[in-house]
């Protein structure tokens, strides 16, 4: 290993953080990724029956009949390498404008990644991107590093999954990893059922030619004039996946602006004392959300609280438990010596963790569960760091002097031969 350190130290590094929703690209040593692209891509069936991938963050929003929107990542793990490679090339060469052959690559992976995918990642980086050096880190470990901690409990609330990973001395404790599918997508289902309960007909952005306009009243007593919205005709042949993708944007906007969690267990009276919030849909129609926005926020802490009536069957996963219980279990699975340190260093990451009130509620519930321990739920100072925490940790790690001897060089890779799977397990902890 040491023979490589001389040449590796001089090479600058890139960090790629592939997530279910977004893939982040950037330079190690910088405080944020310069390029963030959606992990989704479009697939179009050509005339000859060949499949054409549309890996373009603008094009995937175009209403093209027959275009399916799909994802190369499933359950957080990279499944489709062809599209992933296309996405990485687009991010690196087109957007970041770098030549991968000149940069060491730091790639992040989920804590539950499989050995075969690890191996494939290494192979792709060396043989397709032709990078000179490579390393693989766990996203949870990166999230801890981003908060300058080597030991922490990472609670990652993402799109598909909520995962809790204990990180001890920079190593993810496998036995403590717990995960469940109560996350962003589950919230989306609940919001959809709320909209249908309120009889709101949601039309996505691409259908709206012009929003409805409210012209202020010319004087007291004169009513406001409302010019109705103008819509484009609906386009035949648009796929369900495309429609879901477009509707998802509206749900994401709703979550970002209206969703909130009560700091205490849900109580109608307490919820009604909070200010309601408005939300304007793409067609200009405005609705006010009062107690219901807290109802939706409650489902993370109580999945059975969900809007059961309108939810499609089997949306609530079996064995789903409350967020605080999930966290508690993860801690209990670790040795007792480390537990108090984990309790006092809980870090929230992931886009779904940005819900206002969530941190306080988790703190409250956990403290109730574990009154003897000092519970401390940390949050980054800024929302941009929360969703980019794993990229950030990768950036920090790759730029440290003390790390440089750990890179896997092309030379080493060439010498390994067949046992690459074991090799990557051993080298990239």
């Amino acid at each position, binding site marked *: 290993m040491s023979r490589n350190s001389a040449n590796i130290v001089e090479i600058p590094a890139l960090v790629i953080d592939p997530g279910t929703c977004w893939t982040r690209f950037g330079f190690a040593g910088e405080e944020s990724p310069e390029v963030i692209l959606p992990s989704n891509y479009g697939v179009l069936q050509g005339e000859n029956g060949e499949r054409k991938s549309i890996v373009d963050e603008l094009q995937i929003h175009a209403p093209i009949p027959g275009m399916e929107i799909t994802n190369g990542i499933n359950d957080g793990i990279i499944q489709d390498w062809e599209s992933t490679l296309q996405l990485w090339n687009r991010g690196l060469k087109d957007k970041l404008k770098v030549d991968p052959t000149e940069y060491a690559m730091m790639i992040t992976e989920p804590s539950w990644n499989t*050995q075969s995918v690890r191996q494939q990642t290494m192979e792709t980086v060396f043989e397709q991107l032709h990078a000179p050096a490579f390393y693989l880190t766990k996203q949870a470990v990166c999230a801890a590093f981003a908060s300058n901690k080597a030991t922490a409990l990472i609670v990652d609330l993402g799109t598909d999954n909520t995962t809790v990973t204990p990180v001890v001395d920079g190593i993810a404790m496998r036995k403590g990893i717990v995960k469940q599918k109560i996350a962003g997508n589950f919230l989306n289902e609940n919001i959809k059922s709320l909209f249908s309960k309120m009889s709101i007909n949601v039309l996505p952005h691409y259908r709206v030619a012009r929003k409805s306009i409210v012209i202020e009243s010319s004087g007291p007593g004169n009513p406001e004039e409302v010019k109705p919205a103008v819509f484009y005709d609906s386009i035949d042949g648009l796929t369900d996946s495309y429609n879901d993708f477009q509707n998802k944007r509206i749900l994401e906007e709703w979550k970002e602006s209206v969703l909130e969690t009560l700091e205490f267990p849900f109580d109608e009276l307490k919820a009604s004392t909070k200010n309601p919030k408005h939300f304007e849909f793409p067609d200009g129609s405005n609705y006010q959300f009062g107690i219901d926005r807290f109802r939706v926020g409650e489902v993370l802490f109580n999945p059975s609280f969900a809007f059961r009536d309108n939810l499609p069957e089997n949306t609530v996963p079996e064995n789903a438990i409350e967020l605080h219980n999930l966290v508690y279990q993860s801690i209990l699975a670790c040795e007792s010596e480390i537990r108090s340190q984990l309790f006092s260093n809980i870090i929230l990451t992931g886009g779904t963790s940005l819900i206002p009130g969530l941190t306080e509620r988790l703190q409250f519930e956990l403290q109730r569960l574990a009154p003897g321990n000092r519970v401390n739920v940390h949050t980054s100072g800024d929302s941009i760091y929360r969703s980019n925490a794993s990229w950030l940790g990768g950036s920090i790690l790759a730029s440290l002097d003390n790390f440089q001897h750990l890179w896997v060089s092309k030379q080493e890779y060439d010498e390994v031969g067949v046992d690459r799977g074991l090799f990557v397990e051993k080298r990239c902890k």
Partner: protein
Amino acid sequence: MPPAPPPPPPAPAPAAAAPAPPPVTKDRSALLNSIQKGTKLKKAQTNDRSAPIVGGGGVVGDASKAGGRSTKPSGAPPVPMPTSGSAGTNEPPIPASAPKLGGLFSQGMPKLRKVGNASSAASPPQPSKSSTPVSSPPPPPVSSAPPIPPSAPSIPSAPAPRVPTSLPQKISRSPSPTKVPSSPPPPIPSAPSKAPPLPPQSAPPLGSHIPMSSRVSSGNSQTLPPPPPPPSHPPSSPIPASSYTLQHRSDKVDDHGRFQFKDDSYLPQPRRFRGGPKIYRGSTGSTVPLRLD
């Protein structure tokens, strides 16, 4: 309530048993130490397609937004980025570079105070009634006029006669003679007769002064505070921002009536100079004269 049994973590296929953490070698502890110490990172411009459209997305630090924005019109008026919870300590290892609107707009877009006048009732009685709401600078020093006259008349009875003498000084400051005729322009309450001579044909220099001259020439008893020295050149709307600065005060002052300047004559007269040796006081508040011999 007892928690349900945990959903099993998916079992990856490790070649060996779950790897035990490596013994903490010197290298490793050095690495962990440097992580805990923190490292300074460089700021970066982020082309963030994932950020909410309102007030956070696009290229950070770059005013131009890529064409992609047009496919994502915003649906939500309030800016979505909530501020972080504060249950624990905030430990941003690095300074933030993103345009942190944070929770700035969480209450919706702020309603900006209309410039120049707090009372909404007084709309500028300009001859050209603008249909646009008062959002641009030419505003109503005019509309602030009505409150002034009641107080003004009580003052000028004494200084009024001095007005003609003090004004010419101001006049000389301004390079343009057209606006300032021999007669003093400021329509002080006690001298409304002098007001009409103000040549109405003087090029209305700025939108804000039009009402002044028109009012003056209409000879109504509405009195206005003495205007600051008139600007030197014809109007170019909108008023350049430089006109608001103190540097240009003397040239084209347009302060929207926020400051009600009075003529110098309103100031009290200084003490008469008597000359002779000055007698100082012994100490603060003492009436005993100071003797230093």
